[in-house]
């Protein structure tokens, strides 16, 4: 969830809770005030009537007062002095319904010790309507307040977090290989300033580490070449010696194999570094179809031997602007895979159209996830002669020229698809 959404969400949730609590409290308070008012008016009225009865023993003319319904009963016997105020419902025959009323009951004795009862009713329906209206107004008021505050909150948050989002966006597009700095926006918010500083320092450190590591790797790869040459030369010499016994031969053979493997590995890594460092920067217009034809020629005898049938389906010359060495390495690696992992009597199909170059070949089932094929040192076979760098070199070259390379496998048919034009 986005920060803005989340903060708005929480704000909304808490505001609604607060407003419900506030609303209920307000409603209850208003209701209590209204009831107190009613009760006071009932008591006042009762007191007026009570005073009159107790002073004059007459029932006053109560028609004019407050709009209450008043009932007074005079009795001939004394009563205990008693008073209460209560809610009740009274049946109204006109509307055939019960209407709420609040009433005061008072019993007392006159000067002559004759009992009397005063009951004063106050209809509540009007008050309830008032309360209802109030509640509705309150609801709308609260609701619009809520909307306005959410909007304000949202706008403020958006403005406040803007530098943060810009920083995150720039940081996510950070490319360790390009020497460009992050270029984070200036901000007057202290925390974001700190964040930017952290981002800046981190990326600078990352780039330094990366460059150091790269330099180290390159140097290591280059420095390994001479000792490798020494080992290879010594084994070559050793081999030429007369009267070697079987054990020595097998030892020399192993050394030779391991050296070859190390050499292949180093060679592949150096190739990747060179692509990364854009050593092959000279470009020219090249026909991938032409390169494929030349490369196929290199494997002609092998394919003849394996009885691999080659099918060309060229709708396009597949012209691209790229480095000629890289183009050869790219095609050669793809074809070498197609030949290597093919089966006897299999086929290779080369298809070219205005956007794609597709190499399809028969082969053995794939026992690993196609996704990781392009990773370095990942081998599709357990052959020690393979360094597992071929496809990652392909990927590197494709990336360099913004080409898309995908691999699919279905029913022993392998397909490499290179989108060389968008």
């Amino acid at each position, binding site marked *: 969830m986005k920060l803005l959404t989340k903060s708005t969400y929480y704000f909304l949730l808490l505001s609604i809770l607060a407003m419900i609590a506030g609303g209920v409290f307000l409603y209850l308070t208003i209701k209590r005030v209204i009831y107190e008012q009613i009760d006071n008016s009932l008591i006042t009225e009762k007191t007026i009537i009570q005073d009159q009865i107790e002073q004059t023993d007459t029932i006053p003319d109560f028609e004019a007062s407050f709009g209450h319904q008043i009932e007074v009963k005079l009795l001939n016997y004394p009563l205990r002095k008693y008073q209460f105020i209560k809610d009740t419902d009274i049946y109204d025959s006109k509307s055939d319904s019960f209407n709420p009323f609040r009433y005061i009951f008072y019993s007392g004795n006159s000067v002559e010790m004759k009992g009397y009862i005063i009951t004063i009713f106050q209809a509540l329906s009007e008050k309830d309507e008032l309360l209802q209206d109030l509640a509705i107004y309150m609801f709308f008021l609260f609701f619009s307040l809520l909307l306005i505050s959410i909007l304000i909150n949202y706008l403020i948050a958006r403005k406040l977090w803007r530098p943060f989002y810009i920083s995150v966006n720039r940081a996510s597009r950070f490319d360790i290989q390009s020497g460009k700095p992050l270029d984070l926006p200036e901000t007057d918010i202290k925390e974001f300033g700190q964040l930017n500083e952290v981002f800046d320092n981190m990326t600078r450190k990352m780039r330094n580490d990366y460059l150091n590591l790269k330099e180290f790797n390159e140097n290591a790869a*280059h*420095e390994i*070449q*001479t000792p*490798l*040459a*020494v*080992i*290879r*030369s*010594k084994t*070559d*010499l050793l*081999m*030429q010696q007369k009267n070697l016994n079987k054990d020595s*031969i*097998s030892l*020399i*053979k192993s050394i*030779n*194999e391991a*050296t*070859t493997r190390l*050499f*292949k590995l180093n*060679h*592949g890594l*150096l*190739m990747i570094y*060179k692509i990364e460092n854009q*050593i*092959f920067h000279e470009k020219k217009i090249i026909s991938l179809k032409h390169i494929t034809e030349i490369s196929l020629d*290199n494997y*002609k*005898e*092998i394919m003849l*031997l394996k009885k691999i049938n080659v099918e060309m389906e060229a709708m396009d010359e597949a012209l691209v602007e790229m480095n000629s*060495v890289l183009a*050869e*390495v790219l095609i*050669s*690696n793809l074809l*070498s895979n197609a*030949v*290597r992992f093919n089966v006897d009597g299999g086929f290779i199909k080369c298809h070219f159209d205005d956007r794609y170059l597709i190499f399809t070949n028969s082969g053995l089932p794939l026992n690993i996830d196609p996704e990781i094929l392009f990773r370095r040192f990942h081998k599709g*076979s357990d*052959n020690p*002669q*393979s*360094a597992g*760098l*071929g496809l990652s070199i392909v990927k590197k070259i494709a990336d360099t020229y913004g080409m898309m390379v995908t691999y699919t496998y279905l029913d022993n048919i392998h397909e490499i698809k290179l989108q060389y034009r968008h």
Partner: protein
Amino acid sequence: MKLLIVEDDRSLSRSINDYLKMEGHVCEVALTFHEAINKASDNKYDCIIVDIGLPDGNGLDLIRELKSNKSTGGILILSAKSSLDDKLTGLKIGADDYLTKPFHFAELSARINSICRRNKFLGLNEITFNEIRINTDDNQVYVNDKLLTLTKKEYDLLLFFMANRNRIITKESIVEHLWGDDVILTDSFDFVYTHVKNLRKKIMVSEGRNYIKCIYGFGYKFIDS
């Protein structure tokens, strides 16, 4: 053939020296830039093998120096860096070939032979070995004066064998020679075997002798037995 090896790594230069001596060459070793300059000015070499990274100078500068002294010998660059720029520069300033470390001696030998052939026998580009005759101008092979039809790879292979007569050649070096080292071919040893077999068959069909011996565990040897 008289050769000068300019290589600062003692162990490697000694190995190169030993191997090329076995091949019948006369070799001298220079460990530094200045030693190389001195030796080259005193002697005349058929081919100078130059390492690019020297402790007291750049191999490319050495080549420039040699060329300005009107050295007629061939020049083969050895380099730890398979750098395209170095290669192009080297070839431009007059080197004949470029070999990246690590290399097989068979390959080195083939390159030196090819350089010397080009430099020495101008117009007479023919290699003869008993009944086999190779014309490197038009890439034709004759056995008992009968033209042999070889594929490109078989022809390259024969030439490679010729350059390394009486030496054991590993299958790895054949693969690298025939297919280049940018290509990683795994089951290529079988292909080497098949190519060798076909080549042998073609020579023998033309009543040539079987010179290609299989050496257990290593590879092959082209030998006049």
